[in-house]
């Protein structure tokens, strides 16, 4: 499996080929379509990420000390954004997730373009993912 840094680099390279935001959004939407099926019965309020204009559901599974994420959204773009996060952070240890800097978000211009507004909830999704990692870590050490 690629390291977080390698996965980030790969995404940065993919985005560097896309010149404008129309193409970038289309690519983000494509990435969202590739996400694995999200179970309908898990689309509950408890699994919703707070702070997003659109609905985002995020659940986790744990295997061999690693955390795997499943997500869905009613917004195609937000679904693509969470797919990117999952590509980088799913299947990692809690420490890897907590320590990740996610600098690629700045490099591909996502932060400037999106994260300042409440609308997309990118920051909220990252926070939620890190909270899950922290919770798992605390559970392990207890």
């Amino acid at each position, binding site marked *: 499996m690629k390291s977080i840094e390698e996965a980030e680099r790969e995404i940065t390279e993919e985005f560097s080929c896309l010149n404008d*935001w*129309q193409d970038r*959004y*289309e690519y983000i*939407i494509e990435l969202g379509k590739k996400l694995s099926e999200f179970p309908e019965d898990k689309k509950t309020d408890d699994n919703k990420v707070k702070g997003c*204009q*659109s609905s985002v559901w995020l659940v986790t599974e744990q295997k061999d000390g690693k955390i795997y994420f499943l997500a869905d959204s009613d917004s*195609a*773009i937000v679904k693509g954004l969470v797919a990117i996060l999952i590509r980088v952070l799913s299947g990692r240890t809690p420490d890897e997730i907590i320590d990740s800097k996610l600098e690629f978000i700045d490099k591909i211009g996502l932060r400037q373009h999106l994260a300042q507004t409440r609308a997309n909830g990118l920051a909220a999704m990252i926070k939620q993912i890190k909270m899950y990692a922290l919770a798992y870590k605390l559970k392990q050490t207890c």
Partner: protein
Amino acid sequence: MLTEIRHKFNVSEIRKDFPILNRIVSGKPLIYLDNAATTQKPECVINVISHYYRNFNSNIHRGVYSISAKASEEFDYARKTVRNFIGAKSESEIIFTRGTTEAINLVAYSYGRTNVSEGDEILISAMEHHANIVPWQVLCEEKKARLKIIPITDKGEIILEEYEKLLNEKVKLVAVCHVSNTLGTVNPVKQMISLAHRQEIPVLVDGAQAVQHMKVDVDDLDADFYCFSSHKVYGPMGIGVLYGKSSCLEFMPPYQTGGDMISSVSFEKTTYNELPMKFEAGTPNVEGAIGLKEALDYVNRIGIENIAGYEKELLEYASYKLSAVEGIKIIGTAAEKTSVISFVVNKLNALDIGLMLDTYGVCVRTGHHCTEPLMKRFQIPGTVRVSISFYNTKEEIDYFADSLNKVIERLRK
């Protein structure tokens, strides 16, 4: 057939008054269609604020020197301009607040906490902005009173018969928007006020989405309270207005306390200042008041009737263009509307449409527009909202409609 837009004024000349409209954003001309959120500012408003800070910035009402006298005079003149703009009887009935939200909170705290008790009711409509819901909800919880909702039709119009049925001796206040920020519906507030007054129930009108689109005369409406925000009527942010009949304001306790709102202070007892100062604790927003005055003067120069006429034509044009978009459904089709159009597109998410429109340089609003209960009423999570101002053009609407079609095509791929 749609009539060709008749320019009662020269829109290209008007656009020159608004520097931001010439901006290129991400390589594309800015198409600003989020005017219900905030309006752009004309050069004269921008200049008058700068002029104030460059020439006579000082604290008002206390200074014994000439620039303070000048600042005080301009501040008082701003109040006079507001009074004339909405047809109030006296300047003492004009209270400067931070905006509509603070104006409503002021009434909820001051009027509400002295006049509402257990078992009483407050009436609001199903189309209220959160700012005209939450203050009443909090008040009702505190006082064990009940918040009652005036229902609306599928077109987004208040059902007057239901409203009449809800009026009874337990109702201590009706709080209703003049114009819905989400639907654009113009409510029959004059009639609603008259119905409430028959039972001696006072009415607060949230005019945040009205004063920039139509002539408002609080005396003619006979409103007990009327509020609006400067930034939605081409003035600066951070200042707004609460109009209150002096017969109401006189008997209301202060909302906030401190300097300026007092007559005399000793450690034993404080006596309060006269209206409107009783409700204006602390140093006021002088720059804001001066900016608001300039904005209202600007609107008066253009003529609110001219603005209303031109915006109506743009609304008709935009509604006609949008009705041709495949899969679109307009939310809010009241007979009386301002230039606001909310819509949903079959199977597409409003946020996706908004984010994609931004790549074409088009600014729209998406989501619930701070009217979550209204979204629930229509059983939708949110809408895309375009809100048009008198500096927008038919060409901009064409460009917006073309962009929307392209966005939909891209999202449907």
